[in-house]
C-alpha cells in the first residue's frame, strides 16, 4: 500500500496503480474518457488532468494526466486546483464543440458519460460558433446503431473491439480531426461481443438497436438484478422493463463471472420474454391443434387430478429455475422425475460432477481463466457453448504481455506501452475441437478432429503429463503436456457440447494427471443452458426412462421443456402419443406444448424470482423485474406447489443434501437496507407512473407489494449500501451512466461494496457412474457419415432464438463435411443435403478440418430440432435447394 494526498487528505492506494484508478477507487469525482477499467490507460483524451506537486514547497505544481501517472508514496496531487479544473473544462469544451445538440433524441441521453462529464466539469455554455464536423453512419447489423457525429474520439471502441475482444472489422479510420470509427464498408459487425460497445462507448455512437426501436429513458425503466439465461456461464445482468415489455439488458458487474462484459446472445437474446409465442392463458386441448381456454381453478384441478393419478412422470428442465424444478420433483416424487436433459448430456454432466467433486480446488471462476499462463481448450468451442468464457480465455492469451511489461519497467495498466512492447507475443493457448474456433487466431497450436478422436488425443496428453516428454519432443501432444506441466496456472476448459462422454473422460484424465504430477490446475466445464448445473443435482429418471414410461401410458408433466429439442423426434412423438394425459407448463408455444392435453402458462425469468446454478457451481438469484401481463400466468412453482413464498421453496430445496448452503444465495424477502428501506426497482426520477396504465384504466393502480423479495415495484427505497446481490441498476449523484459502477465497488475492478452475489455450492460424485471407456465409433460405410452436433453462438439456444435480432444473426442450417467425403457422396460446397428424419435441408460447407467419415450439423438453427450423435447416417442431396446468398464471397 502507498499513501497519497489528494487535495489535503491522505488515501491508502494500491502500489503501482495509476492515479486515476486510485482516485476512483476512493470514489472521487474525476472526469475521464479514454481510460476503462478493463482496457487500461492510453492518455488520449486528456480529460483526467490533475495537478501534481513536486515537494511540500511546490505551490504551482504541474498538470499531469491522472490515468498516465503512477502513484508513488507521499505524492501530493490536487483534483480541485483551479488550473486543473480550468484545463478539464477546456478539454470538454473542445470535445463538445463538434458534438451535435442531440441529447433529446439520443438513446444515450440520461445515462451518458459525456453528459455527466460535461456537467461535472462545469461546461455550461457554448462559445463555439463554427461548423461541426459530420460523418455518414453505417449499417452495422441487427444489434447496433451507428451515429458517428456523436463521437468524441476517445478510441475506446476500437481498443475494446480489436484489442480486447479480438474483432477485426472495426477500425480507427482517417486522421486528424476526421477520425472515423467504423467498418471499411457497411456490414454486420462480426464479433459476437460487439454489443458491449453500447456500454463501452461513452457517448451515443453505438447504441442498442432493438432497444432504440421501442425506446425508454434509463430513468423510466424498472430494473432488477438478474442472470442471463443464454448459457451456463450465468453472467449477471440488469434487466429492465417498461410497459410490460423487457426493454433491454445491461451488464451487471460480477468480479468472478462476467466482469464488465456480456456476449451478444445474452445482451440481445434476453428479450425472448416479449416473444409473440408467449402463452398467456391456460388451455385444454379439445381436438388436434385446438385448445380451449380454461380458468386458473379449472387448470389447477386438471393438474391435481394428474398428480393424484398415481402414475405420472415429471420432466424438469435445465432452462427452468431450481425452485420450479424442485416443485415439480416434490409433486411427482423423485423416482418419477427426470431432469430433462438427454442421456448423453446427463452422462457428461455426471462426469463433470464427479470431476468437480474429486478436485474441488481446481474448479475455476470464469475470470480466473483470464489469469492462466497456459490454456487448453478441449472438446468444444466455448465461443458457441458459453461465449463469455471464450472472452476470458482470449484475455489469458495476453498474459505474457504483462510479464514482458513488468520486465521492461512498463506499468501493466499502461495499455499502449504494454501492447507496443509485447506486440504479437502470446501466452500458450492450445485448442482441440471438432472445427476451427473463434479463438484460433490467438492459439499457439490447434488440432481439429471428431470428438472420438479428440478423446484419444486427450488420453495421450494425460499419458504424456504422467510421463513427461523429453525437451526436444515435438508435436501437439508433447507441447501441451510440456507447457501445462511448466505453467504456474495451467488451465483447461471443456464442455458438454461435443456430446461425446469419452471427451469428458479424457479431459478428466488430463486434470487428474496434472494433479498427480503435483500441479495445481484450474478447470471449467461448460454446458448449454442456464441451469444445467442446478437441475442435474436432482436425482431420478433418465430422460429415456421417462419417455419409455410415457410411451407405455403414464401421464406426464413437462416443465418448460421442448422435448423435440432433446431427443430424436420419432421417439418423442411416440412417447407423447402413447402417454396418458400430458400437461405442459411453459412460457412459449413449443412443439411439445402443441402436443399436450393441458397447457399452463408460466412466467419467465423476468417475471418471477428464481435461482440458477452456473458452470462454476455458483447458485445465483435472478430477481423478478416486472409483473407478468395476463392474469393466468404464474411462476411454475405456484402452479405446482402450495408454498407461499419463493424463499420457502428455496429453503425446502436447500434441505436436500445436493443443495447444502443454498440459503446463502441471496438476502431473503425481509431484507432491508441500513435505513430500513426496500431497494427500488424504479429510479427516483421515474416518470409517468400515473399514466403508464391509463390505456387500461384512468385510475392509478396501487403499486403491488412484493412479498417475495426486498425490492419495491416503485421508486420508493434506497439504492445504496445494500447487499451486492440486490443492485437493480447503477446510479450515483453526478454519475448517470453505467460508469457509476465504481461507486458500488470497494475498488475499481474489485469486489462490490455489498459483497459478491451468489454462493458456490459443493459437488458430490454422481450416483449413476458413467461408462469410462472411450466409445469407439464405427467407421461408416461409403455413402454414410457419422453425425456430430455442432452448436452455434446464434440459433442453437432455444430461448434467444425467439428474438428477431438474434434470428437475423443466425447462419443457415449448415453441414460441414470433409471434401473427400463430399466427393464420394456427390455433394459440393453450397449444395443442400439432408438425412431421413431431418426437418430441414442443410447448407453444405466443405472443410478439410473435418475428420473424414464425419459430418457436423449445426444444432437447432431454424428448425428447433435436436441433432444427436448418430452413426452411419445416409446423406441425401436436396436438388431443389437454393443456397442463401454467400456473404463471404460477396465481401
Amino acid at each position, binding site marked *: 500500500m502507498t499513501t497519497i494526498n489528494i487535495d489535503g487528505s491522505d488515501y491508502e492506494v494500491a502500489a503501482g496503480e495509476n492515479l486515476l484508478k486510485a482516485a476512483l477507487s476512493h470514489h472521487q469525482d474525476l472526469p475521464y474518457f479514454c481510460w476503462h477499467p478493463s482496457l487500461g490507460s492510453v492518455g488520449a483524451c486528456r480529460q483526467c488532468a490533475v495537478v501534481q506537486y513536486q515537494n511540500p514547497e511546490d505551490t504551482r505544481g504541474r498538470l499531469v494526466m491522472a490515468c498516465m501517472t503512477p502513484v508513488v508514496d507521499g505524492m501530493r496531487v490536487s483534483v480541485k486546483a483551479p488550473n486543473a479544473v480550468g484545463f478539464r473544462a477546456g478539454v470538454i469544451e473542445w*470535445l463538445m464543440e463538434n458534438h451535435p445538440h442531440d441529447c433529446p433524441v439520443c438513446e444515450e441521453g440520461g445515462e451518458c458519460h459525456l453528459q455527466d462529464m460535461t456537467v461535472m466539469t462545469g461546461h455550461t455554455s457554448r462559445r463555439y460558433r463554427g461548423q461541426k464536423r459530420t460523418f455518414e453512419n453505417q449499417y452495422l447489423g441487427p444489434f447496433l446503431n451507428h451515429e458517428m457525429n456523436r463521437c468524441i474520439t476517445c478510441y475506446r471502441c476500437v481498443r475494446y473491439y480489436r484489442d480486447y475482444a479480438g474483432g477485426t472489422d472495426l477500425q480507427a479510420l482517417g486522421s486528424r480531426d476526421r477520425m472515423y470509427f467504423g467498418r471499411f464498408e457497411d456490414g454486420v459487425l462480426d464479433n459476437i461481443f460487439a454489443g458491449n460497445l453500447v456500454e463501452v462507448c461513452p457517448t451515443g455512437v453505438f447504441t442498442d438497436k432493438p432497444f432504440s426501436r421501442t425506446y425508454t429513458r434509463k430513468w423510466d425503466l424498472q430494473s432488477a438484478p438478474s442472470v442471463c439465461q443464454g448459457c451456463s456461464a450465468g453472467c449477471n445482468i440488469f434487466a429492465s422493463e417498461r410497459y410490460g415489455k423487457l426493454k433491454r439488458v445491461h451488464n451487471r458487474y460480477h468480479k468472478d463471472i462476467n466482469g464488465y462484459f456480456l456476449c451478444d446472445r445474452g445482451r440481445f437474446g434476453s428479450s425472448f420474454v416479449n416473444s409473440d409465442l408467449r402463452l398467456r392463458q391456460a388451455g385444454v386441448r379439445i381436438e388436434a391443434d385446438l385448445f380451449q381456454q380454461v380458468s386458473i381453478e379449472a387448470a389447477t384441478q386438471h393438474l391435481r387430478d394428474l398428480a393424484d393419478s398415481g402414475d405420472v412422470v415429471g420432466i424438469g428442465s435445465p432452462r427452468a429455475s431450481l425452485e420450479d424444478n424442485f416443485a415439480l420433483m416434490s409433486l411427482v416424487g423423485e423416482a418419477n422425475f427426470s431432469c430433462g436433459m438427454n442421456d448423453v448430456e446427463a452422462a457428461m454432466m455426471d462426469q463433470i460432477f464427479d470431476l468437480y467433486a474429486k478436485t474441488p480446488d481446481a474448479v475455476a471462476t470464469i475470470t480466473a481463466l483470464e489469469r492462466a499462463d497456459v490454456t487448453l481448450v478441449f472438446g468444444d468451442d466455448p465461443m458457441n457453448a458459453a461465449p463469455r468464457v471464450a472472452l476470458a480465455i482470449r484475455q489469458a492469451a495476453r498474459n505474457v504481455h504483462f510479464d514482458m511489461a513488468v520486465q521492461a519497467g*512498463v506499468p501493466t495498466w499502461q495499455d499502449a506501452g504494454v501492447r*507496443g512492447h509485447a506486440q504479437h507475443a502470446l501466452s500458450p493457448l492450445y485448442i482441440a475441437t471438432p472445427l476451427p474456433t473463434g479463438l484460433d487466431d490467438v492459439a499457439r497450436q490447434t488440432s481439429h478432429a471428431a470428438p472420438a478422436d479428440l478423446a484419444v488425443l486427450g488420453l495421450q496428453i494425460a499419458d504424456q503429463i504422467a510421463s513427461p516428454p523429453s525437451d526436444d519432443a515435438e508435436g501437439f501432444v508433447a507441447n501441451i503436456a510440456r507447457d501445462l506441466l511448466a505453467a504456474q496456472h495451467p488451465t483447461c476448459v471443456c464442455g458438454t457440447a461435443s456430446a461425446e462422454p469419452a471427451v469428458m473422460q479424457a479431459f478428466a484424465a488430463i486434470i487428474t494427471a496434472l494433479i498427480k504430477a503435483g500441479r495445481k490446475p484450474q478447470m471449467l466445464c461448460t454446458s448449454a443452458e442456464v441451469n444445467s448445473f442446478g437441475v442435474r443435482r436432482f436425482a431420478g429418471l433418465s430422460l429415456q426412462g421417462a419417455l419409455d414410461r410415457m410411451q407405455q401410458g403414464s401421464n406426464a408433466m413437462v416443465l418448460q421443456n421442448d422435448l423435440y429439442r432433446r431427443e430424436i423426434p420419432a421417439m418423442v412423438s411416440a412417447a407423447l402419443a402413447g402417454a396418458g394425459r400430458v400437461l405442459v407448463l411453459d412460457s412459449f408455444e413449443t412443439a411439445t406444448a402443441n402436443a399436450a392435453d393441458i397447457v399452463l402458462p408460466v412466467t419467465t425469468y423476468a417475471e418471477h424470482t428464481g435461482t440458477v446454478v452456473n458452470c462454476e457451481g455458483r447458485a445465483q438469484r435472478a430477481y423478478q423485474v416486472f409483473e407478468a401481463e395476463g392474469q393466468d400466468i404464474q411462476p411454475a412453482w405456484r402452479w405446482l406447489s402450495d408454498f407461499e413464498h419463493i424463499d420457502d421453496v428455496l429453503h425446502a430445496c436447500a434441505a436436500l443434501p445436493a443443495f447444502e448452503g443454498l440459503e446463502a444465495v441471496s438476502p431473503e424477502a425481509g431484507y432491508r437496507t441500513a435505513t430500513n428501506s426496500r431497494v427500488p426497482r424504479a429510479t427516483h426520477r421515474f416518470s409517468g407512473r400515473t399514466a403508464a396504465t391509463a390505456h387500461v384504466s384512468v385510475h392509478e393502480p396501487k403499486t403491488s407489494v412484493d412479498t417475495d423479495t426486498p425490492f419495491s415495484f416503485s421508486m420508493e427505497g434506497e439504492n445504496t449500501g445494500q447487499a451486492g446481490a440486490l443492485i437493480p441498476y447503477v446510479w450515483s449523484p453526478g454519475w448517470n451512466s453505467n460508469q457509476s459502477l465504481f461507486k458500488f465497488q470497494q475498488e475499481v475492478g474489485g469486489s462490490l461494496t455489498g459483497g459478491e452475489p451468489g454462493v458456490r455450492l459443493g459437488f458430490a460424485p454422481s450416483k449413476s457412474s458413467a461408462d469410462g471407456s472411450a466409445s469407439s465409433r464405427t467407421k461408416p460405410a461409403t455413402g454414410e457419415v457419422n453425425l456430430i452436433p455442432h452448436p452455434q453462438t446464434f440459433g442453437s439456444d432455444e430461448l434467444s432464438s425467439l428474438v428477431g435480432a438474434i434470428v437475423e444473426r443466425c447462419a443457415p442450417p449448415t453441414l460441414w463435411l470433409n471434401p473427400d467425403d463430399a466427393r464420394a457422396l456427390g455433394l459440393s460446397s453450397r449444395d443442400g443435403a439432408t438425412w431421413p428424419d431431418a426437418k430441414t435441408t442443410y447448407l453444405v460447407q466443405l472443410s478439410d478440418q473435418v475428420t473424414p467419415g464425419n459430418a457436423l450439423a449445426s444444432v437447432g438453427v431454424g428448425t428447433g430440432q435436436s441433432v444427436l450423435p448418430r452413426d452411419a447416417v445416409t446423406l441425401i442431396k436436396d436438388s431443389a435447394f437454393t443456397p442463401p446468398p454467400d456473404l463471404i464471397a460477396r465481401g
Partner: protein
Amino acid sequence: MTTTIFIARDSTAIAVGADGIAAQISAQCDQNQHPVQIARPGSRGMYWAEPLVEVEINGVRHGFGPVTSDAVAGLCDLICPLDRAPIDPKVFKQHPLYLGDLSHHAYLAAQQRLLFARAGLIDALDLTQYERLGGLRGLRRALASNSQSIIDQITESGLRGRGGAAFPAGIKLKAAAEAEGVNKYIVCNADEGDSGTFADRLLMEADPFQIIEGMLIAALATGATRGYVYLRSEYPLTASLFGQALVLAREHGLLGPSIYGSSHSFDIELRIGAGAYICGEETSLLESIEGRRPEVRSKPPLPVHHGLFNSPTVINNVLTLASMTSIMAEGAQAYHDLGAGTSRGTQPFQLAGNIRFGGVVEVPFGVSLRTLIEEFGGGTASGRPIKAVQTGGPLGKYLGVRQLDVPMTYEDLASAGGLLGHGGIVVFDDSVDMAQQARFAMAFCAAESCGKCTPCRIGSVRGVEILDRIKTGKNLEKEIKLLDELCVTMTDASLCAMGSMTPNPVLSALTIGPEDFGLPAGSRHPTES
C-alpha cells in the same frame, strides 16, 4: 577530346529545369558536333545557382548558373564550340552566368564540408569514385576494431542526433549494444518533414554510399543485422537512386551475409513513408514500418530497448548516421575539434525562404545566424529587410531581427527560445504577415495531427478558426486571450511534440508581429511567448 559537362541529377535542380537544360545542351553539342559527355552527379547544394552547368577543363570545373533555357545557345558557344574549336576558359569570364572555378567559389570555400565533401563531385552511384574521395575508410576502421571502440569513438566525438532532439549518438549506440535481443535494427530516419529542410534528400541523392556506410558502422557497434531506411514519400528520385545504391552495395559485398568478407552480416531495406509529418517522429515511424497507423508510442520502453518489431533499435537521422563515417575515418578528436560548447562537429544549415543564396551551408556549430543569412545567404531575395526567421522546422519559433546574432549551437538557440532541429532556416522579409504565419502553423498541425489526443486534434482546428476571427479585428482582446489559453492547453497536454510545440510558432509570431494581428507594435513582451 571529349568534354565533360556536369549537370546535377537532383530533385531541386530538376525542379528548376536541370533535365531540360541537359537535353538542350546535349542536342546543341550534337549540332555543334562537339563530343561531350554529360555527367549527372548529385548537387553541390548551391541551389541558388541551379540549374548549374559545370564544364571540366584540365581538371578544373568551371561553373555557370543559374542557366535558363534561353541562355543555353550562348553558353554552348563557349563550352562546346562548333567543329571542335578549342575551348578557352579565359573568355568564360565575360559570360554573365559564369561562377568561376567552383572549388574556389566563396560559397563553398567558406564552408567546412564533412558530410557534403563529395556532394556534386562524384557520380552518386559509383562506388570507386566514392572510395577514391575518402569513402569506406571509416567502415574499414570499424571492421578492424570492435563494438566498444566504435561506441567510444562516436561518444568522444560529441556527435548528437541531427533529427531534432539532439540526443547524444554514442549513448544510443551503447544502449542498443547492451540491450538484449536476437535481432537488432538500425533505422535511418529519412522522412525529412521539417519545412525548409532538404539536406537529407540532397545527401541521399549525391552521396548515398555514405549513408549505407554510416548504417554499417552503427550496425557493427550494436550487433544489428538489419537496417531500414524510411524515406519521405515525396522523394521519388531519391528512392530510385538510393535503391540502386543498395543493389550496387550488395553486388560489391558491402551489404549481405558477410560484409567485406567479415563475419558480420547486414542488409538494408528501403521503405517509402506513409506521407504524414508525424511519421517522422521516431515511434510513429516504427509503427509505420510495422504496417500500422503512425500513432506515437508511449515511452518507456525506449526504442533502443524495445523498438522495431520489439527488438533493440537505433533510430537516427540520415545526417547523424552519415556523420559516423568521417568520425571513424578521421578519429573522434578531429570531429570534436569542430563546433562549440556541447554542439560538436559540423551542421549542414539549409537556407530557405526569402533568401538570395539558398542552399546547404555546412559549417561547424557556433556560426551566428546573421553570418549564415547575410554572408552565405546574401540577405533576402527580395532585398527588403528581414522580419522573421524560423529555425528548426514547422514547430520552431520565429526569431526576430534582434535575435540574429545568436550563435548556432543547440544551447544558445534554445536560450534564445529557438530550436536548431534539423538545421533548416527559413527567412521572411518585412512584407510577411505574421498572423498568416501563425495561422499556417495551426493549419499545419490540424492537417498533420494523428488524431489521437484531444488538444492537438481539436485545438489546432480551433486555433485556425480563432486566427481567422482575429483577422476580422472583432473582439480582438477576447480572441487573443482565447488563443493564449488554447496555446497553454496544447503545450501542457498534448501527447507528443506535434501538438505541444505548435504554439511555438504561433505565439512567437504574435511577439514579432503584433501589428499583423491588429495589436499595437511591441505590445507583446517576448516573455509572453
